[in-house]
C-alpha cells in the first residue's frame, strides 16, 4: 500500500484510483551500494528518495489499528528532517532487515513496534540525512558543518543556496555511509512527542483501504472450509455430491484441516460448504465441557503445583499472620473476535506463489506456505494487507489460516481466497486460555501483606513453543507474567503452576497473561485493603511508596477521578494499576450497579510509557485497550459443550457497543524511563478496576469473569 499523506488530509485520495497493494521495494543491504548507478537514493531498508523529491518511508510492521502506519514513519521523518506533509508510506515485503529483535522473523506483537523500532528508525533517518548533507557539501564545495536541513531541503545559511532531497538523491547515493550519525536531542524534536493525526484515515473512511478480505486479483476463486466442530476431532469421510451440484462450485477437496469447497463467489462457497455431508471422528473430546473442566481446574489449584518461584517461608509467615485471605479467581476462554474474520488468498503459480493476508507474522507465514508448496521461501511473495484487528489472533504461531489457505490453493493455478465465516473464526480456537488462580495472602495486624502464595492452572499457549523451538515443560510463562515481577512488598512470594493438556488451542490475546494476573493481583490487594479497613487508593500508595512511577500514576488518576468524593447510592469507584510490556497504566472506573445491571460510567486512565512518541495515538490506544478489556470483563466467554465452542457470533459473544461505552479520559506521564509498549498495557487494569468498583458500589466481591451479579 502506498499512501501519500497530503492526499488524505486534502481529500484528493478520493479521486486517485486504486492504491498499489503490498508493493515490494528493492532492498540492498549496503547503503553505499543501494543507489549506485541510479537516481533513487535508497540509504537503507526504510527510506527511498526519488529525484522528484518524493520521500517514501517503508513500514515493516502490520497496521491493525495501533497506528504503526503513522508513528513509525514519524520517527524516520523526524531524524531525516523530511517534509511530513508530503511523505509517502509503504508497506514492506518480507525481509530479514525487518526482523524482530526477539526472534529471527518479522513480528508485529508484544506491544513492541515503537520501542523496538525507535533506535533503528532514528538511525535510519539520521544516516540518510547525513548522506544528503554530504552530497550538498560536495556539490557546493562547502563545509558540511554549516549546512542545515528542514522539510526535505538542505540549505546553506551563508550563501542562501538550497537543494531538495530529490535533487541530491543521486549524489547522496555515492556518499560513504557514516558509521554513527548523531541523533537529535529531544529538545529539537519537531514531529515526535506531539499529537499527530493518522495517515490512514482518508482511505479508511471512504472504503478504499484494502484489508485481506478485500483482495481481488484476476481469476480469483473463493473457498470455505468445513472444519471439525469438536476440538481434536479428525475427518473420517465426506460426501460432496450435493455440494458439487450447487451453482458456482468448482471443486471440493480434502485439506489437512477439513474439507474445502472452491467456488466462484464467497457466498456460493459457504453455501456449498454447509451442504457437505462430513463424518468426523470426534476422538477423545466429544464430551468435553467447560463446566467439568472448571471443576478439575479448581481442584488442581488447591494442590501443590510446579514451583516456579519460592521466596521466603509462606507457611511460617501465614501461621503467624493476623489473617489470611484465601480465594480463587476464575477466567474463561476468550475469543479475539477481530472485526475482520480470518482470511487468506494464495496463488500457487507453479514454482512460485503469492500470498495476500492480514498477518502479524509474515516471515513464519511465508516459510510455512513455501514448505507446503515445496518452494523456497524467497519464491513466495507475501503481501501484507491492512488488518481488521489483530489482538494476537493474526500472530498465529502455527499460521493456521495461512497454512490452510495454502493447502486449499495448492496446485490450483489460480488465486484462491479462503474466508472464514464469523462462526468459523469464533469457534476456531486459539483462545485466551481458561485459567484458575488460587491465592493466599497473609496480612499482619495492620493489614499489611506479609506473604503471598499463588497457584495457577491453565494450559500452554501455542505460540511460545513454536517461537522458541523448545517444548514447554512445567509451566507457561504467560501463567505468571506480571506476578513474578510484581511490585507489592511481601516477605514471601510463592508461585506454583499446573499445566493442563487440552485439545482447545490457545494463543496470546491482547495483553496475554496480564489479562488474568492483573485481575488476580489488583483484586487481591483490594480485598486486603478492605480487610485492613484502609481506603484502597491509600493502601496502594502506601505499599508502592518505593516505586515513584506507580505513585505518580496513582496520584494522577486519584486527582482525575476525584477519588474520595461522595457518590450516589449504588455507584462506586475502583482502582487498579499494572505494569506490562514495559509500560505502567493506572485506571479508575466508576461503576453503577442497579439490581443485576452493571454500568461502567466513566474510566480515568494514566499511562507512563517512558516517552509518548505520538501522544494522540497513545491516548487512542488506551481508549481501545479499555473497551476491548471491558467487553471481556462484562461479557466475554467461550464455553465448551460436547467438545464444541458454544458461542459463534456477537449474539452469544456480546461486546461493548456505543450505548455501553463509558467516557474515557487519558493522561500521559512522560517519565523519561525506558520506553515501553502501548498496544496492550491499557487492557489489564480495566478488569480489576471495574471489579473493585462493583465491590465499592454493591459490596459484592466478584472473583469470576465475566462479571455477573
Amino acid at each position, binding site marked *: 500500500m502506498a499512501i501519500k499523506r497530503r492526499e488524505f*488530509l486534502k*481529500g484528493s485520495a*478520493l479521486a486517485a484510483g486504486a492504491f498499489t497493494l503490498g508493493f515490494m521495494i528493492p532492498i540492498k543491504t549496503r547503503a553505499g551500494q543501494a543507489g549506485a548507478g541510479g537516481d533513487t537514493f535508497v540509504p537503507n531498508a526504510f527510506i527511498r528518495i526519488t529525484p522528484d523529491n518524493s520521500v517514501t518511508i517503508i513500514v515493516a510492521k502490520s*497496521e*491493525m*489499528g*495501533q*497506528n504503526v502506519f503513522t508513528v513509525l514513519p514519524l520517527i524516520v521523518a523526524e531524524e531525516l528532517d523530511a517534509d511530513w506533509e508530503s511523505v509517502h508510506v509503504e508497506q514492506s515485503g518480507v525481509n530479514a532487515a525487518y526482523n524482530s529483535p526477539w526472534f529471527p522473523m518479522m513480528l508485529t506483537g508484544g506491544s513492541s513496534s515503537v520501542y523496538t523500532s525507535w533506535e533503528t528508525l532514528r538511525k535510519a533517518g539520521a544516516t540518510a540525512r547525513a548522506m544528503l548533507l554530504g552530497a550538498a557539501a560536495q556539490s557546493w564545495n562547502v563545509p558540511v558543518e554549516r549546512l542545515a536541513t528542514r522539510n526535505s531541503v538542505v540549505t546553506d545559511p551563508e550563501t542562501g543556496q538550497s537543494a531538495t532531497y530529490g535533487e541530491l538523491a543521486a549524489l547522496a547515493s555515492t556518499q560513504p555511509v557514516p558509521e554513527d550519525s548523531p541523533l537529535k536531542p529531544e529538545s529539537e524534536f519537531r514531529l515526535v512527542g506531539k499529537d499527530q493525526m*493518522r495517515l*490512514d*484515515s*482518508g*482511505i*479508511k*473512511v*471512504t*472504503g*478504499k*483501504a484494502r*484489508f485481506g*478480505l*478485500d483482495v*481481488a486479483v484476476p481469476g480469483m476463486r*473463493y473457498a470455505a472450509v468445513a472444519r471439525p466442530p469438536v476440538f481434536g476431532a479428525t475427518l473420517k469421510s465426506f460426501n460432496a455430491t450435493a455440494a458439487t451440484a450447487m451453482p458456482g462450485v468448482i471443486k471440493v477437496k480434502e485439506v489437512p484441516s477439513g474439507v474445502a469447497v472452491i467456488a466462484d*463467489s*464467497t*457466498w*456460493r462457497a459457504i453455501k456449498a460448504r454447509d451442504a457437505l455431508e462430513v463424518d468426523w471422528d470426534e476422538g477423545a473430546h466429544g464430551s468435553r465441557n467447560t463446566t467439568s473442566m472448571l471443576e478439575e481446574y479448581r481442584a488442581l489449584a488447591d494442590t501443590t503445583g510446579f514451583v516456579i518461584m519460592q521466596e521466603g517461608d509462606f507457611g511460617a509467615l501465614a501461621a503467624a499472620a493476623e489473617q489470611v485471605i484465601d480465594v480463587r479467581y476464575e477466567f474463561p476462554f476468550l475469543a479475539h*473476535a*477481530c*472485526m*475482520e474474520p480470518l482470511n487468506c488468498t494464495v496463488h500457487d503459480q507453479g514454482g512460485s506463489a503469492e500470498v495476500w493476508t492480514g498477518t502479524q507474522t509474515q516471515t513464519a507465514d511465508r516459510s510455512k506456505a513455501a514448505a507446503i508448496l515445496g518452494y523456497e521461501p524467497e519464491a513466495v511473495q507475501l503481501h501484507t494487507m*491492512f488488518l*481488521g*484487528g489483530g*489482538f494476537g489472533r493474526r500472530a498465529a504461531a502455527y499460521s493456521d489460516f495461512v497454512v490452510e489457505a495454502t493447502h486449499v490453493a495448492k496446485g490450483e493455478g489460480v488465486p484462491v481466497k479462503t474466508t472464514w*465465516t*464469523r462462526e468459523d473464526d469464533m469457534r476456531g480456537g486459539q483462545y485466551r486460555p481458561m485459567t484458575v488462580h488460587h491465592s493466599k495472602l497473609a496480612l499482619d495486624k495492620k493489614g499489611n501483606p506479609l506473604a503471598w502464595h499463588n497457584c495457577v492452572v491453565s494450559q500452554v499457549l501455542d505460540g511460545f513453543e513454536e517461537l522458541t523451538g523448545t517444548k514447554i515443560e512445567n509451566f507457561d510463562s504467560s501463567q505468571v507474567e506480571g506476578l513474578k515481577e510484581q511490585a507489592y512488598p511481601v516477605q514471601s512470594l510463592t508461585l506454583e503452576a499446573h499445566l493442563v493438556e487440552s485439545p482447545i488451542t490457545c494463543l496470546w490475546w491482547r495483553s496475554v497473561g496480564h489479562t488474568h494476573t492483573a485481575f488476580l493481583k489488583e483484586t487481591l490487594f483490594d480485598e486486603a485493603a478492605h480487610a485492613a479497613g484502609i481506603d484502597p487508593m491509600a493502601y496502594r500508595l502506601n505499599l508502592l511508596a518505593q516505586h515513584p512511577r506507580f505513585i505518580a500514576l496513582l496520584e494522577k488518576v486519584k486527582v482525575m477521578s476525584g477519588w474520595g468524593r461522595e457518590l450516589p447510592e449504588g455507584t462506586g469507584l475502583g482502582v487498579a494499576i499494572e505494569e506490562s510490556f514495559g509500560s505502567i497504566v493506572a485506571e479508575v472506573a466508576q461503576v453503577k450497579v442497579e439490581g443485576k445491571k452493571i454500568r461502567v460510567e466513566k474510566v480515568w486512565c494514566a499511562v507512563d510509557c517512558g516517552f509518548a512518541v505520538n501522544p*494522540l495515538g497513545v491516548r*487512542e490506544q488506551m*481508549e*481501545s*485497550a*479499555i*473497551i*476491548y478489556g*471491558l*467487553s471481556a470483563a462484562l461479557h466475554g466467554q467461550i464455553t465448551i459443550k460436547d467438545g464444541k465452542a458454544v458461542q459463534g*457470533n*456477537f*449474539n452469544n459473544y456480546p*461486546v*461493548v*457497543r*456505543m*450505548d*455501553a*461505552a463509558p*467516557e*474515557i479520559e487519558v493522561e500521559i506521564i512522560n517519565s523519561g524511563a525506558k520506553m515501553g509498549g502501548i498496544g496492550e498495557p491499557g487492557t489489564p487494569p480495566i478488569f480489576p478496576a471495574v471489579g473493585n468498583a462493583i465491590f465499592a458500589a454493591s459490596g459484592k466481591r466478584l472473583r469470576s469473569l465475566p462479571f455477573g451479579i
Partner: protein
Amino acid sequence: MSILLSVNGTKYPVDVEPDTPLLWVLRDTLGLTGTKYGCGVSLCGACTVHIDGKAVRSCSVKVSSVGEQEITTIEGVSANGLTIVQQAWIEEDVVQCGFCQSGQVMAATALLAANPKPSDTDIDDAMKRNICRCGVYQRIRKAIHRAAELNSGEV
C-alpha cells in the same frame, strides 16, 4: 437469472441466486469491497449500506428483494469528495483498524440525514448496531456531534 440492481447511480445486471445476500453481490460480483463482512446476521453493522437513504444491513437483504430501490455504498456516498461525516471522522481521528468504519460512516450518515442534531441518546440508539472492536466509540460520538455542527454551519 439476471437481476437488475441500482447501485451508486448505476444499473448493474447481476446473475446470482435470488437469495444471495446483497453484501456478497456488492463485494464479489460488483467489486465494491468498501462494504464489509463482519457477522453475516445483522449483528455488527460492518455491512451497512443505504437503500433509498435508509441504513440497512446488506448481509441480511436478499438481492431479489431490493427491486428498483437505489443502493448507496461507501463508494457512492463520497463519490463527489469527502462528505461532512467523513471530514468529521478525519478531524476527530476516529479510525483505528478501520474495518468497521464504512459501516459506521453509513450508519452515522443516515442518522444525521434523519436527525440533524442528534442527542447522545439518539446516537446510542442509532449507532449501537455497529460494533467496533478497536473501541473508538467515544470518538465516533464526538465526530457525529462535530458533523452536526458542520452541517448546521455552526463552525
